[in-house]
């Protein structure tokens, strides 16, 4: 019986990070990071000299990193499945007492996928930006920031230690800050950038304290040590670590209650929204949870927290997406919602980790595709973002329309496009866990169909609503080619699930995949989901497609619409509960400091002088005379100095 129990424990024990050190082709791992880092340094320090070719260097570094990532991936495929974790030690970062933090990289099945996503989608978006930013006289700097972002994001997913993750984590936060505020002469952009950084820092509390608690518990913050010993920690500790990491994930991935920055972040140039605020950075929270599966798999309580956060956010984001007239904000609400799905999946544990990553990848394709599509539309519409001013753009922008449509079908979950496979799996796993969670995921799919159909209707279909002097036109090839590539990926991304490839591939990292059989069966579930999606789309068709669309948003709308337009009052809440009292409190504190503190200290000074006088009386006359001499000496210096008149 003991043997049976041990076997049971072993089966469910999360896998241990136990890499072998990198040699052969894997020794180029560091180059994947170093190339974009070099690009960033040259572009940001090179100044105007690099203006002419800066964007090309920016594209070249990331494209080369993609090629390297591809070579590494193929090499990893060629290895035996038990031997696919590779580590590269670069240098010792810092040491304090028994605490060592290495600057080390971990390349395994999970980071391999991320490398391809980051450098692949990253390279496409770099190419697109060459056209999109062509007329911006700070284009070189833009590419410098983009390269900086890619560098930090690669550090985030390759670090072998929680503190290394933190370096990348804050690095992408910095790049995000710089890029949201890229047009910083606009006060709204500058404010949005600051807001994003500050709210992310609230999440960073979670990562800082999480790393601290991990150190206190395990004496190390490296994945290898923590994963090997996690099962020995108490469940309370594991839950606390899990919840702290969840807080961090909420900040970076714009999950409730730290979601409010993402909608404002749309102030950044559209390629930034596509790369950072859709495809990669905002999904870092999902990465963190899945990477820390050796913690989360052992704590059901923390996983429940993850699921709750995911469910709330997936519904919130979807509802917000329904009411936005700004095409980018509608897509941003959608991003929140889709990441909600990923977080939800990650919270399901071994049943969901792989699907979280699967959806993260397909979402990276189709959402980047649609954001770039939105950018292409804006490009042709003189940077107008209001969908009420669009309409019937399918003719003016055929390539943008075609590629966007594929993204649309993918996010709705229409077979055989990528989103169908990945979202369906999450809904199925959610029902396997809990009926309420399943229903949330299912309803979310319906609402997604509604807001995306609304977006398609307002933008590409319906009647034209643009002004006479606007001349919508298709974007240049340098922009449409990345759209086609991403549309292609959005169409075929589901192939990752063939033969359960992705679950098998990831199982050495996240543990053996567990499947719950549903009463309706897999196909039945898919049919139900499809019906809900069609329903959502049909309602949008009825409400939006069959009525005239006013170019000014109507004022008389339902409470829900008003709430959704106001981002479900997230900002209002923060303003009333945190910002306003905070500002008032700080004002009071300034007065307090200038009057009370300054005043009391004068009083304390007198008290301490009395104490020091007491000391003088303790000892005999000989000592006292020396003491008095010294005091007198000090006083003479004092008076001499005070006597100097500065005028």
């Amino acid at each position, binding site marked *: 019986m003991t043997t049976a129990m041990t076997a049971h424990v072993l089966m469910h024990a999360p896998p241990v990070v136990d890499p072998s050190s990198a040699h052969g082709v894997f020794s180029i791992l560091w180059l994947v990071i170093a190339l974009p880092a070099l690009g960033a340094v040259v572009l940001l320090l090179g100044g105007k000299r690099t203006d002419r070719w800066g964007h090309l260097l920016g594209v070249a570094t990331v494209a080369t990193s993609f090629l390297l990532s591809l070579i590494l991936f193929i090499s990893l495929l060629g290895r035996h499945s038990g031997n696919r974790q590779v580590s590269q030690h670069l240098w010792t970062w810092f*040491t304090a007492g028994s*605490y060592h933090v290495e600057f080390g990289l971990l390349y395994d099945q999970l980071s391999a996928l991320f490398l391809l996503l980051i450098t692949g989608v990253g390279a496409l978006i770099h190419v697109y930006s060459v056209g999109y930013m062509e007329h911006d006289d700070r284009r070189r700097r833009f590419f410098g920031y983009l390269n900086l972002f890619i560098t930090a994001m690669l550090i985030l997913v390759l670090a072998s230690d929680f503190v290394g993750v933190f370096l990348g984590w804050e690095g992408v936060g910095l790049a995000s800050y710089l890029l949201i505020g890229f047009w*910083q002469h606009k006060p709204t952009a500058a404010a949005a950038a600051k807001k994003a950084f500050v709210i992310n820092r609230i999440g960073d509390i979670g990562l800082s304290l999480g790393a*601290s608690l991990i150190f206190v518990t395990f004496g190390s913050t490296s994945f290898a040590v923590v994963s090997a*010993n996690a099962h020995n920690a108490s469940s309370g500790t594991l839950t606390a670590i899990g919840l702290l990491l969840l807080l961090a994930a909420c900040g970076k991935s714009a999950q409730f209650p730290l979601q409010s920055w993402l909608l404002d972040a749309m102030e950044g140039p559209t390629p930034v929204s596509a790369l950072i605020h859709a495809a990669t950075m905002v999904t870092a929270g999902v990465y963190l949870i899945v990477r820390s599966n050796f913690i989360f798999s052992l704590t059901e309580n923390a996983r429940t927290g993850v699921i709750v956060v995911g469910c709330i956010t997936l519904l919130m984001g979807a509802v917000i997406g329904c009411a936005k007239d700004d095409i980018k904000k509608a897509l941003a609400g959608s991003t929140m919602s889709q990441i909600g799905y990923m977080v939800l999946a990650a919270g399901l544990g071994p049943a969901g980790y792989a699907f979280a990553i699967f959806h993260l990848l397909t979402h990276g394709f189709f959402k980047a595709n649609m954001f770039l599509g939105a950018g292409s539309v804006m490009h042709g519409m003189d940077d107008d973002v209001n969908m009420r001013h669009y309409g019937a753009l399918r003719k003016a922008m055929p390539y943008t329309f075609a590629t966007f449509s594929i993204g649309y079908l993918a996010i709705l979950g229409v077979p055989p496009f990528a989103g169908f496979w990945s979202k369906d799996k999450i809904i199925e796993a959610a029902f396997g866990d809990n009926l309420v969670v399943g229903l949330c995921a299912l309803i979310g799919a319906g609402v997604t169909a509604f807001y995306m159909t609304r977006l398609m209707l307002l933008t590409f279909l319906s009647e034209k609503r643009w002004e006479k002097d606007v001349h919508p036109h298709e974007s240049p090839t340098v922009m449409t080619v990345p759209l086609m590539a991403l549309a292609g990926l959005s169409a075929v991304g589901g192939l990752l699930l063939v033969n359960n490839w992705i679950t098998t591939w990831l199982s050495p990292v996240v543990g053996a995949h567990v499947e719950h059989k549903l009463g309706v069966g897999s196909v039945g579930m898919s049919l139900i989901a499809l019906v809900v999606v069609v329903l959502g789309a049909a309602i949008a068709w009825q409400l939006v497609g069959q009525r005239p669309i006013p170019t000014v948003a109507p004022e008389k709308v339902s409470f829900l619409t008003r709430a959704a337009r106001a981002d479900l009052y997230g900002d209002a809440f923060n303003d009333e509960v945190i910002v306003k009292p905070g500002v008032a409190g*700080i004002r009071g*504190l300034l007065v307090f400091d200038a009057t009370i503190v300054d005043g009391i200290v004068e009083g304390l000074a007198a008290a301490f*002088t009395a104490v020091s006088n007491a000391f003088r009386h303790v000892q005999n006359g000989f000592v006292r005379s020396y003491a008095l001499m010294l005091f007198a000496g000090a006083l003479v210096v004092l008076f001499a100095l005070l006597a100097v008149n*500065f005028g």
Partner: protein
Amino acid sequence: MSFPWLSVLLGLPLVGAVLLVLLPAGVAAINVKRAALFISVAELIIGASMALRFHNGDGTQFTEKHEWIKAFGAHYALGVEGLGLSLVLLTVILTPVVILASWNDGDEGRWGPKAFFAWMLALEGLAVGVFAATDVFLFYVFFEATLIPIYFLVGGYGGPNRAKAAVKFLLYNLFGGLVMLAAVIGLYVQSARHHVGASGGPSYLLSDLSKIDFGTDVGRWLFLGFMVAFVVKAPLFPVHTWLADTCEEATPGTSVLLVSILDKIGSFGMVRFCLTLFPEATHWATPTVVVLATISIIYGALMAIGEDNIPRLIAYTSVSHFGFIVLGIFVLNSQGLSGSNLYMFNHGLSTAALFLVGGYLIKRRGSASIKDFGGVEKVAPVAAGLLLISGLAVLSLPGLSPFVSEFLVIVGAFVYSPWAGAFAVTGIVLAAIYVLLMYQRTMTGPLREDNAGITDLNVREIVAVVPVIALMVILGFFPKPLLDMLNPSVHHSLVQVGAHDPGPNVTPSGSSDEGGAK
């Protein structure tokens, strides 16, 4: 006899200061400035050569000892371990930076550039003396002596209310100094009673004093005497108000010398004297100091958020950062103390950069009020970039050197008590607010008309700040050389204070193979 490195480092700037003053009146101001810069660069080269000869882990080095006042047991005794050396290095690195950055700041003062740079050099020499003294009496003399140059630099070259600010600075610090003097005398009494000196008499040598068991009451009183002076110096709530007032009036260079270097005497003194000489009292005071330090972190940051005057804002960020430094010392574990020692150096760099770049902008705009700025990035992109990087260092962004120190202090605080860690960590959010709010209000948005005349930084100004920023980047990714220097003295301090690091809660499995150890 080996080469007296520390005496040279101490003497060169002092002699240089005197020579500067003695220069004939006919010498052009530019040559006075060049001479000052030359001396400080020579000092930097000597300091760096000395550091290269330092052997990590070999205890106090470059020692010199001469009897000075026999009746007191006072010696002219110098020597540095890791922490002292790092702060001497900080001093010799920042002084040329400050001189170059303050090139024209002495022109309009009361006594002209000659006295301005002479006081700066004098301050450099005295600061080296403070960090290198291994005799308590000598330390005290240097400690008090450093007040004089700052007093004249603030009072002679500051803003309109400089006289008042100089007096406030002096009164606060002399008050702290006098309380410490009482403790210094008390030490003499104790050393005479315990006959620790070489010939059975009194001794002020740290090595002799550390042999004494002061007993609970005496130890605590003496500890308090030192601690009060140090807490005023490395200002903690509630004795911090002088710092903002002083920085508001001082020239940016003076503020750097004061906040980046001299205030470190406080935190340095806590480690070197309070922990080493009074271990029992240290343990006794720990809870109180931890609470005060944590309050300082949050209080200083909140004040900085609300502050409109740029130098005052930076002064308050330092109150917050000294909170971190003192917290790291008094949690009495390796992570906290290593972080804290490293923080002293890193805070010196980040605050120097911020003060200097802020100073460049204030000089151009003719106002230190954030309200008077707006959209400056448009006309001064280099200044904006440097302000942002300095600000990011102040908010401890990973990749820049302050991060490692702040992270270690937070970990150390957490090891001490999760609550201490949880309160301290709020500082990272507040720091993001005060730094980015300042950047947003000064640099972003449309360019204000009254800001259109602001010019970007000139080559001299850039050259002065860039080495500091480069050092922060290098030490952000590779702090090892500095930590290797500091860690042995951290270990030594912890041994002396009798503190032990708790082991991990979970004993590691013997093997990393899954299930192998079960």
